[in-house]
């Protein structure tokens, strides 16, 4: 049989998806596929284009490498646009001179950025936002620019504005012709709220503004508007809409729309039945679908029909959810139903920046559509309720408010959806598909992604996929919750909240109230740490001593051989000669090995457990206090010498490090905390590898969070610049308390952030903009912990009862463990090796 020859013109997301779908449906040798792409790279994920500025490379974004095309027998011509189609001879001609015959053509030419004809658009510093090349040029130009602007306040414009902020152009204007932002997706009240939120993030927004001229010599320097105003600008991104790439279709006589777009029927056929058009270049019933999911559906329709199936394109839902500069924005169904045709419920909290609207049919049975801004957690559920016409609960307002008082959540949750409910519309994956994948063993989100493709398009369905996974696993009797251990059916955060609400003071109280069994080495330290974080009581208080990790129980670090090490606090690494001498004397008296730690303090090793109280008595008399090296707690705030001695120093980093270390000393957390303060950008204290790091600037301090050294080094993220000391401490209070309250056990801040939905933008919003409305509480809680601080070792030294616990033998208190053996090395002792 002769192969059917298909030429695909355009290798964007939809063109690629068409190839993939055709291959999966066709028999081997049924088709010959030839693809022409104008761009120099094979198709990449344009939807996540902006991730390019977050460090993703072109390869990361690629849908499939060149080898994929080779392996599947597809002939791929990149950097070679098709220039002409000869419909009578059934051939095409490319820019590089290739002529190919065809049986069918699939046009997947996408669209280009629409650039209005404003005088000056050709100047240097004016860009569009569509391809990786555009972004490379923007990235390269940005360092020269200080004042940015974006024309277009729609979805893409705001994304471009975020990119500008990320590139360090903090003075950025968004210029919108319409009276408000995102007029196509959200209503007026929503626009207003969104605008307010974006303004607090530093964008300047000009609505009702028509650009008349882009001025400047060679490069842009100014923009002039119709209302006789102007602004200084040295970099501009135009994002005023899209223009379908219909030029070759037009040239060969296919019908195109008045405002662009290749006219197609229900089978995606153009006016020539041998030529199809899919994706952003196709005009279906007068409409261009500028989203990826409908494009994929069009590809599906053509692939199905070419392989003998029957499928029609039936239009597509334009629901979207996105995170714009850390603000959730979603609209679904028909967001604009006028109030006289529907019951409209609106919830607005201008303080927190939340706006929600749902439109409900007059009989109260059906959800018609809605808008969510600031908090789109319910988006997927609402979208499904709307699409599947699920009967609404008696109080439809519960849909957006969450039910208050009752145990059931608003609506029936994912379990209430029919099996054929489309969960991932990009890849047409239904609830049934996902559930059966889970039953077949795909028990992580990544596995589900790999075997069903759900969530590999826009990714908006991921929370729901996760919910479905959890439900399915539960229904099959599998334990999936992020629970601490068999004794508690709760996560650390839940135990934290329960303990706090119940004012529970001891491990046993918590276990009796919320757990079962007798506890274990996993949940005991978790609860112990929660109790310490909540009440900051002496951790060796009766009943709580035995649930501490061994190190906390003896307030020292257990080392090889069963001896302990002692690390007194040396805040900021600053120590007087007298204190150094005292340390030396103690070490000599008790025959301890001494070493300087990575955190600028001195570690004394090899102490018998029964000597610990006596050692600490001497240390405390010499003015030392516990260094909490044994605890999941603040360790050190490392500092460089700063402006007091260093010729580069901008501020006194040592004094500030001491202030910070003393503020948070003894603070119990899910894991240890390290910090650093550098006196200038040379960063001698390595602050950017710490859980929180501080670097002096000309005007104040820069604050970095969630860095890590250790086994998985990670750079800390800059969250605030040029702030004064008081503001910095306020942010730190919030950050640390938020971490303490929400992190899983034994999770360092870096890992905590990596797992956080919304990532650093979300965290920044919580800390800087108080997006959860909890900042005041966090500060208050931290202050009470700071006020409750006491040195644990001082309490032991003052309390003979507590000291008793430090004997090795209960029935021979003066005897030491005779099995402990030391050997000599470099004039000190070391412990004998493991056997």
């Amino acid at each position, binding site marked *: 049989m002769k192969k059917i020859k298909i030429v695909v013109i355009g290798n964007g997301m939809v063109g690629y998806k068409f190839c993939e779908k055709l291959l999966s449906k066709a028999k081997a040798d049924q088709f010959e596929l030839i693809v022409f792409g104008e761009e120099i790279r094979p198709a990449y994920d344009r939807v996540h284009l902006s991730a390019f500025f977050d460090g993703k490379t072109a390869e990361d974004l690629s849908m499939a490498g060149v080898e994929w095309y080779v392996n599947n027998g597809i002939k791929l011509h990149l950097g070679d646009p098709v220039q002409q189609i000869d419909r009578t001879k059934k051939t095409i001609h490319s820019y590089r001179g290739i002529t190919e015959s065809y049986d069918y053509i699939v046009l997947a030419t996408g669209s280009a950025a629409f650039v209005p004809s404003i005088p000056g658009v050709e100047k240097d510093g004016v860009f569009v936002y569509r391809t990786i090349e555009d972004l490379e040029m923007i990235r390269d130009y940005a360092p020269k620019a200080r004042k940015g602007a974006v024309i277009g306040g729609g979805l893409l414009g705001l994304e471009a504005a975020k990119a500008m902020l990320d590139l360090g152009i903090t003075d950025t204007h968004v210029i919108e012709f319409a009276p408000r932002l995102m007029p196509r997706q959200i209503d007026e009240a929503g626009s207003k709220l969104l605008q307010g939120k974006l303004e607090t993030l530093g964008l300047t927004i000009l609505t009702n503004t028509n650009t008349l001229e882009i001025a400047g010599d060679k490069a842009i320097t100014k923009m002039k508007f119709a209302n006789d105003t102007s602004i200084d600008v040295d970099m501009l991104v135009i994002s005023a809409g899209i223009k379908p790439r219909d030029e070759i279709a037009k040239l060969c006589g296919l019908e195109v729309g008045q405002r662009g777009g290749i006219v197609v029927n229900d089978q995606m056929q153009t006016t020539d039945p041998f030529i199809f058009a899919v994706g952003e270049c196709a005009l279906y019933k007068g409409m261009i679908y500028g989203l990826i999911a409908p494009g994929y559906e069009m590809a599906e329709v053509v692939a199905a029909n070419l392989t003998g199936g029957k499928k029609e394109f039936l239009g597509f839902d334009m629901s979207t959810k996105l995170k714009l500069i850390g603000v959730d924005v979603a609209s679904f169904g028909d967001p604009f139903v006028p109030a006289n045709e529907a019951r409209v419920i609106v919830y607005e909290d201008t303080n927190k920046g939340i706006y929600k609207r749902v439109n409900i049919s007059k009989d109260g049975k059906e959800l018609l559509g809605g808008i969510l801004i600031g908090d789109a957690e319910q988006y997927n559920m609402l979208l499904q309720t709307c699409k599947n016409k699920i009967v609404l609960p008696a109080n439809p307002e519960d849909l957006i408010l969450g039910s208050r008082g009752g145990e059931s959540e608003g609506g029936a949750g994912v379990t209430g959806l029919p099996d054929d409910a489309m969960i991932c519309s990009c890849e047409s994956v239904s609830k049934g598909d996902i559930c059966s994948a889970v039953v077949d063993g795909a028990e992580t989100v990544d596995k589900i992604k790999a075997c069903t493709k759900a969530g590999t398009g826009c990714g908006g369905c991921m929370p729901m996929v996760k919910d479905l996974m959890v439900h399915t696993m539960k229904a099959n009797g599998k334990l999936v919750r992020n629970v601490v251990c068999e004794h508690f059916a709760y996560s650390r955060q839940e135990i934290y909240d329960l303990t706090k609400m119940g004012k529970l003071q001891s491990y046993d109280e918590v276990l009796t109230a919320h757990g079962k069994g*007798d506890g*274990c*080495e996993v949940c005991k330290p978790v609860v112990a740490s929660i109790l310490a974080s909540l009440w900051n009581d002496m951790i060796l208080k*009766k009943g709580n001593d035995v649930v501490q990790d061994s190190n906390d129980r003896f307030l020292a670090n257990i080392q090889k051989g069963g001896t302990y090490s002692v690390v007194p606090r040396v805040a900021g690494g600053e120590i007087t000669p007298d204190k150094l001498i005292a340390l030396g004397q103690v070490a000599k008296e008790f025959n301890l090995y001494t070493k300087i730690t990575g955190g600028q303090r001195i570690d004394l090793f090899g102490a018998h457990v029964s000597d610990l109280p006596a050692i600490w008595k001497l240390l405390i008399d010499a003015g030392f206090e516990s260094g909490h090296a044994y605890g999941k707690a603040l360790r050190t705030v490392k500092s460089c010498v700063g402006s007091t001695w260093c010729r580069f120093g901008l501020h006194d980093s040592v004094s500030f490090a001491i202030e910070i270390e003393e503020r948070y000393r003894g603070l119990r957390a899910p894991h240890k905390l390290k910090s650093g303060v550098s006196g200038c950008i040379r960063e001698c204290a390595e602050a950017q590898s710490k859980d929180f790091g501080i670097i002096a600037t000309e005007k104040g301090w820069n604050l970095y969070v969630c860095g890590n050294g250790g086994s998985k080094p990670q750079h800390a993220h800059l969250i605030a610049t040029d702030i004064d000391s008081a503001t910095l401490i306020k942010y730190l209070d919030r950050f640390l308390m938020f971490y303490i309250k929400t992190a899983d056990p034994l999770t360092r801040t870096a890992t905590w952030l990596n797992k956080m939905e919304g990532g650093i933008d979300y965290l920044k919003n919580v800390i800087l903009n108080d997006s959860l409305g909890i900042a005041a509480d966090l500060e208050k809680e931290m202050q009470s912990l700071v006020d409750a601080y006491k040195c644990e070792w001082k309490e032991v030294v003052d309390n003979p009862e507590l000291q008793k616990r430090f004997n090795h*033998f*209960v029935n021979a208190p003066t005897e030491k463990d005779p099995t402990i053996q030391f050997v000599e090395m470099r004039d000190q002792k070391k412990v004998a090796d493991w*056997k």
Partner: protein
Amino acid sequence: MSELKSTKVNWFFACAVEDVPENGGVCVKHGDDQIALFNFTRRGEWYATQNMCPHRQQMAISRGMIGSVEDEPKVACPFHKKTFSLKDGSCLSGDDYQLKTYPVKVEDGKVYIDVK
């Protein structure tokens, strides 16, 4: 006190009840041996095992945290968190280790270990 002299058992006086922390352990010296003694208040039970962890020969079991898995009482060595049944001393973390266990009894506020 007559039963203490029975041939089968050899009750050794370890310490007073209040010397052992509730839900915690202490180390008892018996000649050259070290015995870990646990006061499992939550279950109203006492247990004793050898103090040396068989994993890296560390004298540490008495400083371990006790708890349960399903209904089996256990102790976790503080060094590498290997866990052992308090009832029969078997290793619950899947290794081939065994702790020696000892019977314990409490009389008049005093704790005795059968050291045979």
